[in-house]
């Protein structure tokens, strides 16, 4: 029933509108504008996926567009392929370039990322301009009239054809949006490091995001090449990239209908401004500026804020995951416990230049235990956690996991091995609901691939529902089931920490590293957090606990390692630690300090 409705909205109505359009607006100019709208829209759908979902930035989309246009022109005219085949191939070629741009910009952020994409776009437009033998340069090259199965497509038929593709791509994009792919895109767009420790290979996912986006831009370019049976390099300039980005932002980035509205603005506005050629830029710039100031979330974003439209809100990836059950007992899924050594740090050092954040530290973590790591500020606790989770590569020593050397593993590799962590400085996926945050944690258990998600097969929705229920169960375990559909960033501090714990549990970890899980939480929340840790311990989960609150540490931990100035100063059971003079000295200062406090000695 619900499924049928989906098809009506996504496919049925658009198809009818598309088919009927020429009967209402039957003049060459309007049809031409409609073609341009549909072509641009396809590009914008792709860019929205990149900018809106994954929080990346591309000011070089014109590069992919140009690659699509020229490849399809060459494949059709020189190689002699059918135009439709050549457009699809051009999309794939553009996707390859998308992957290259992703690789080049992997570590670049902010203005640096902007520059990488600008440089790519500019390079492509210079090549288009200068490689006259192939591209025709500014004078352009001719392409053929598009034909399918021997039928030449007239202007109206071509518009139908583009529209059909646009509808198909929209449906695909929508499916991507609401499934695990959209969730993963949003996740690494929100926090790369949190995605990594949940087993997401951010590099590959970025490549995927760029490739999909570039594919759509390439197809758009291919369609453009046959729109006028002519292309010239003057089309492919930086300004067009900026226009694409404007469409995404004005429409409402990350929303499903944003691209339609955004495209309508950038294509429609110039039509109205036709009579004001001399003031065109000024009017356009003015409207853009006002829109950005008044509607920072774009047109769709602004509407979804109004309560009447709230139910159409589409910023959320997916919330109707079927009914979540409360009746069955929530249980934690944990791997079989392991006795003996689970994790060994062998002479681990982490030096930053001259600073020895941790130096030659040895720790053994036994299976099924809660191992505390404590120490004063600056003792190297956080660095140790960062090394353990693969966020930092240690400068010396080895990390053995069940006897296997994992020193050189990336965070997602370590997560795949079954180690995950929470963050002292919270790293929640802020654009998602609490439930979706936890669902990302199941990343390594999801089985369905890209194509299945593109079609949103029954298998996919079954999987989604299955893990939604599992995520909900985890929330029940940490006591947050009431909050499941709230935005993660709206929760109080202590509850956000619980969300991180639930998210980590979703990975079904062998070892969970809790990095100061009680920092900033209220006493009541601390009690809750402590209770959760205690229950996890009873369930047999191995935990590394880094914490400042001594009552938690002393009550929960089986074994404790104390660090000071990057060195291990002692280890043992809580009782041993509490009575060790070195620990007391590290925390309270040595004899000197005692004398200072007692007033028997003065400074200087």
């Amino acid at each position: 029933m619900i499924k049928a409705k989906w098809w009506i909205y996504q496919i049925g109505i658009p198809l009818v509108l598309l088919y009927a359009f020429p009967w209402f607006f039957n003049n060459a100019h309007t049809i031409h504008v409609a073609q341009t709208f549909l072509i641009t829209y396809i590009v914008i759908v792709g860019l929205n996926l990149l900018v809106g979902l994954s929080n990346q930035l591309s000011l070089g989309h014109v590069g992919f567009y140009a690659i699509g246009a020229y490849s399809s022109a060459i494949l059709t005219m020189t190689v002699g392929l059918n135009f439709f085949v050549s457009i699809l191939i051009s999309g794939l070629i553009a996707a390859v370039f998308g992957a290259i741009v992703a690789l080049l910009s992997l570590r670049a952020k902010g203005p640096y990322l902007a520059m990488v994409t600008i440089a790519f776009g500019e390079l492509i437009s210079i090549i288009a301009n200068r490689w006259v033998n192939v591209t025709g340069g500014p004078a352009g090259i001719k392409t053929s009239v598009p034909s399918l199965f021997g039928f030449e497509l007239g202007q109206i038929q071509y518009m139908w054809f583009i529209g059909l593709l646009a509808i198909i791509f929209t449906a695909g994009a929508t499916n991507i949006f609401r499934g695990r792919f959209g969730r993963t895109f949003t996740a690494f767009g929100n926090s790369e490091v949190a995605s990594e420790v949940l087993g997401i290979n951010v590099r590959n996912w970025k490549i995927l995001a760029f490739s999909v986006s570039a594919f759509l831009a390439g197809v758009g370019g291919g369609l453009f090449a046959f729109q006028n049976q002519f292309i010239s390099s003057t089309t492919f300039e930086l300004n067009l990239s900026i226009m694409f980005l404007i469409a995404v932002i004005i429409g409402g980035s990350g929303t499903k209908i944003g691209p339609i509205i955004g495209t309508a603005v950038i294509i429609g506005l110039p039509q109205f401004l036709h009579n004001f050629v001399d003031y065109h830029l000024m009017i356009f710039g003015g409207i853009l500026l006002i829109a950005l100031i008044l509607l920072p979330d774009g047109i769709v974003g602004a509407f979804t804020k109004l309560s009447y439209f709230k139910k159409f809100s589409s910023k959320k990836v997916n919330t109707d995951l079927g009914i979540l059950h409360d009746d069955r007992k929530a249980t934690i899924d944990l791997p079989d416990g392991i006795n003996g050594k689970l994790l060994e740090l062998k002479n681990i050092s982490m030096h930053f230049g001259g600073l020895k954040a941790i130096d030659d530290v040895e720790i053994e973590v036994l299976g099924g235990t809660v191992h505390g790591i404590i120490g004063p500020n600056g003792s190297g606790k956080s660095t140790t956690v960062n090394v353990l989770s693969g966020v930092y590569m240690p400068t010396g020593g080895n990390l053995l996991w069940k006897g296997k050397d994992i020193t050189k593993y990336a965070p997602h590799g370590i997560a795949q091995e079954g180690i995950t962590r929470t963050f002292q400085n919270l790293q929640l996926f802020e654009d998602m609901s609490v439930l979706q945050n936890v669902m990302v944690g199941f990343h390594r258990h999801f089985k369905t691939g890209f194509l299945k998600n593109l079609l949103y097969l029954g298998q996919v929705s079954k999987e989604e529902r299955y893990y939604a229920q599992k995520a909900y169960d985890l929330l029940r375990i940490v006591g947050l089931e009431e909050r499941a559909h709230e935005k993660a960033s709206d929760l109080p501090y202590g509850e956000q920490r619980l969300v991180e714990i639930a998210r980590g549990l979703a990975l079904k970890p062998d070892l969970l590293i809790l990095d100061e899980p009680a920092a900033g939480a209220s006493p009541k929340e601390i009690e809750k957090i402590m209770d959760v840790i205690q229950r996890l311990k009873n369930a047999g989960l191995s935990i590394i606990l880094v914490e400042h609150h001594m009552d938690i540490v002393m009550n929960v931990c089986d074994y404790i390692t104390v660090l000071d100035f990057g060195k291990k100063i002692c280890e043992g059971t809580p009782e041993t630690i509490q009575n060790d003079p070195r620990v007391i000295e590290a925390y309270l200062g040595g004899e000197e300090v005692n004398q200072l406090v007692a007033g028997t000695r003065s400074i200087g």
Partner: protein
Amino acid sequence: MELTDILKAIINGLVYGSVYAIIAQGYYITFITTKTLNFGQGDFVMLGSLIGLSTFMTITATGGGVWIAFIASLLLVIVILGICGWGLEQVAIRPLKSWHSIGWILSTVAVSMIVRNVAMLIWGRDVLMAPSPFGRAILDLGILKIRYHDIFVLVSAAVIMLLLYVFLKKSLFGKALEAVAFNREAASLMGINPRLMASIAFIIAGILAGVGGVLVGPMVHPGAFIGLFLGLKAFAVAIIGGIENPRGIFIGGLLLGVLENLFTLYSTSMKEAAAFFLILVILAVLPQGLFGKRVKEKF
């Protein structure tokens, strides 16, 4: 290829590079204080060059001396572009709710569209000829001929860099700017108004663009549509050098200018492509630019 050609290319490159670097310092100042920058900086440069040109021509046409005309045009450009910078911050940066999104890229682009349109209405669509206060005078060194204007640009760039450096490192304003850059909250607790600092940063950026425009005017043919190209070059320079390192930017500017002009010896298309190719290679290896700080993020 002769040695003189290479020498000429290098000098030419240094001249262009130093202008790019001055314009790019504007990116640096606003980026450290607000984490935003003016994507339309190039159009401010264009505006500076055109206002400078018109002032210069008006004064010389009414019988004023060349140097009086030059200094008057420089002062006028400084005032007007300073105001433009302030206005930009007021309309395109401050009202945006969040600087973390990319809204500011588009809002500054929007302002640049308006600026470009205004310039087009005043000065027309075509490029103009801008005379240098030195006319076409050339210093003849035997193997090498250098235009006096080029020497003037090099010297001015050095002076401007020095002034900027002194301003940032020695003056209270400069220190306040750096404090905001280092930690916004802490700076504001110390009584520094980050909003005022943001305004000052954009005013300085506007002035730098304007002065850059006055200097570059006689080297290019100024016109309403030259902004994009100049802004892009300056942005490239800022990124190559590392946007948070003013000295890096200066070196990056000279480097890009020289390399570009050396490539011109082979072909002009190589020249255009070289800069962007270089950027892709540099950023793939050093994502913070050549001289950018590499910070290890803490989690």
